[in-house]
């Protein structure tokens, strides 16, 4: 072999080595998605044939679940109990639980399933309008008829939540998800730190909030640490601000493209977050901290407040006597939006392939419905601190967390208009990432206008398929 030829082969091989790494990389991330090994359970009993097999075609039924209820998620224990209950009823049905708590792993797993046409039977896909793409392409099943045929769901699940799952507002007829829990987002505060700083009552307006922060800083405590490494922490704050400044309708207008992210009032919300950061309310190093650290700092008393969902209640069990809650403060010059607040419903979708498997669908729907049953919802509230999605759940105050009791009081008395994530009203599935990146950009040097412009231009590019 000539020297020149040898060199050419060497160059080619080296180049292939580099690209090989890439092809392998894509494959790996998609294939296993860093799945939580502990949550990967497969249960099956070889007992005598029972109803499902007698009624069915005799073929074994395997139900695949892909949810976020795994590992540290507050719903993990409950999910396991529901699965166990279902398994006791139908011992010959195999449950293949591929749930993973990590959002990246979950997304990778789901998208790989979608790309390969192997979608799970029950999925816990977040967001509402972004379901449209998957609804239109048959990835998710239209549950309208199933809900209508199930009086327990139709009559008792909160109709506002069921309406939220209906996609006609974005041009797709049908209800594509079953709500299984509802989360409010509020400020949790450390009562002892407030007391030490001489704060007598929780703030209701932003002016009061600033006073509280000043007093906390004087007492040597960082008022409100935000784990901004996880961009969604900032996105949630902006959503709360948007509702207090412009009302929930504004988010719907943004989603329906009747408003723009570059609108003055939306830009104002971004500038407001920048101002909070400039005032030192988030502390010095918040940009390098993640959600887990943020939570740890609240528990250890290094920060006095945390703005978070009701999913946090279960984690605060050990210190719940020292924790209080208050709603995101309102703006005195915009009192009309005082009663607008955030609620994040979480829902289950069914795989679109089930429409061709009516026998299996029956069992899958039964399992999904169990998550929204009266009993499960009651346990959800007692064990996980979740707000029930049903209207017929009676809760005893002494059995639930005092924090949940406070939230339910707020829900009952103060909140009139609920809104989900601002990005959830848009059909562009990647808006959450676009928004998150721009907000972090705004906190690391961009102006509020530049950040808004970045969101709008990327959103338009994504929407037009550029």
């Amino acid at each position: 072999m000539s020297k020149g030829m040898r060199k050419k082969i060497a160059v080619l091989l080296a180049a292939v080595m580099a690209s090989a790494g890439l092809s392998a990389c894509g494959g790996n991330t998609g294939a296993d998605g860093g799945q939580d090994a502990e949550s990967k359970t497969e249960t099956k009993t070889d007992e005598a044939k029972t109803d499902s097999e007698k009624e069915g075609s005799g073929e074994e039924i395997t139900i695949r679940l892909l949810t976020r209820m795994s590992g540290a998620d507050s719903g993990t224990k409950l999910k396991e109990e529901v699965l166990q209950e279902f398994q006791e009823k139908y011992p010959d049905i195999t449950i293949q639980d591929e749930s993973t708590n990590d959002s990246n792993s979950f997304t990778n797993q789901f998208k790989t399933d979608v790309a390969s046409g192997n979608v799970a039977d029950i999925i816990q896909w977040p967001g509402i309008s972004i379901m449209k793409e998957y609804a239109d392409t048959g990835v998710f099943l239209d549950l309208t008829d199933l809900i209508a045929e199930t009086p327990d769901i139709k009559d008792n699940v909160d109709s506002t939540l069921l309406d939220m799952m209906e996609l006609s507002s974005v041009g797709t007829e049908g209800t594509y998800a079953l709500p299984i829990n509802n989360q409010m987002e509020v400020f949790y505060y450390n009562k002892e730190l407030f007391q030490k700083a001489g704060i007598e009552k929780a703030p209701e307006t932003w002016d009061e909030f600033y006073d509280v922060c000043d007093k906390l800083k004087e007492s040597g405590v960082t008022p409100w640490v935000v784990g901004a490494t996880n961009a969604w922490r900032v996105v949630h704050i902006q959503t709360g601000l948007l509702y207090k400044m412009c009302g929930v309708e504004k988010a719907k207008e943004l989603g329906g493209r009747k408003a723009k992210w570059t609108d003055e009032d939306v830009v104002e919300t971004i500038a407001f977050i920048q101002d909070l950061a400039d005032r030192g309310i988030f502390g010095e190093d918040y940009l390098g901290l993640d959600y887990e650290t943020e939570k740890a700092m609240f528990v250890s008393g290094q920060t006095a407040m945390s703005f978070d969902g009701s999913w946090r209640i279960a984690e605060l069990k050990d210190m719940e006597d020292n924790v209080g809650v208050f709603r995101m403060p309102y703006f005195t010059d915009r009192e009309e939006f005082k009663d607008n607040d955030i609620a994040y419903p979480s829902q289950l979708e069914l795989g679109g392939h089930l429409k061709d498997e009516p026998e299996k669908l029956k069992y899958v729907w039964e399992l999904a419905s169990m998550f929204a049953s009266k009993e499960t919802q009651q346990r959800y509230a007692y064990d996980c601190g979740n707000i029930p999605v049903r209207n017929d759940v009676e809760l005893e105050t002494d059995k639930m967390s005092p924090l949940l009791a406070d939230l339910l009081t707020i829900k009952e008395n103060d909140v009139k208009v609920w809104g989900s994530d601002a990005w959830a009203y848009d059909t562009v599935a990647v808006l959450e990432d676009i928004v998150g990146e721009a907000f972090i950009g705004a906190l690391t040097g961009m102006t509020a206008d530049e950040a808004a412009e970045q969101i709008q231009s990327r959103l338009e590019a994504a929407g037009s398929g550029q």
Partner: protein
Amino acid sequence: MERIRRNKKAVLCFLMPGFLLYTVLLMVPIGGSLVMSFFKWNGIKNVPMVFVGFSNFKAVITDAMFWHSIKNIMWFMVLTLCTQLPIGLLLAVMLSERFRGYRFFKFAYFVPQVLSTTVIGLLWYFILMPTGVLNTMLQGIGLDSLVKSWLVDKNTAMTTIILVNTWCGIGFHMTVSYAAISGIPDDVVEAAKLDGAVGLKKVFHIIIPMIWESIISSIVVIVTAVLKTFDLVYVMTEGGPNGLTDVPSTLLYKEAFRYNDFGKASVIGVYIFILSVIFTVISLRITKRERLEY
């Protein structure tokens, strides 16, 4: 043995399994990726791919984020070449003196190479976070002014990741260079010593010229490895904040798995492939030198 080598069928039999695996697992996906770069596809199986010609290529090449990621990867390559290889070589030269306990150091320097990149990424993420060991240490010795968010600050984020990558890779290049140095005949070293080639003279006039082939290999390995860097960046920053530490492969991942644009993701893959060919040729050209026979 010679008889087997002459038997073409036997040779083919031995080569075929490897060739088939190579083709199915590497060449086919690369080909598929190239084809997909001409289509628009959102990653949903029952949604047909739409042929869009070169528009994905145009979209990527006009995207400021892509050029930012290219800038990052260039800085990554330059800094890695300037740190990983010289430090690895220096350690190899020191270890080749075979001082007492050199085996321990050889092992210690190689350990990061054995650890998975995810483990290393997480380890350094916790060391470098604002409340992490590094900042605590700096505060402890009174260097409060140096305390910062290493992975967020625009002046330090990318460089910090590159230096962590350097830390992981030094062991490999040290081992390669050490093996090459061990292969230099003793009589050559002795003769050089008699001629007064000691210390740096020995390194620059004897060792480096005689292990030049292995240095070239190391350069090619660094160039190709840097271009496919993904895991370390992804674990430590996910390319953030706001794309500050994005490299082409994290951008590729985001296009595919976050933005559901598999066509654009494939184009980025194609560009990485082209870049790797170009840089491999350049590095081989630059390092071209007559091989020393001894």
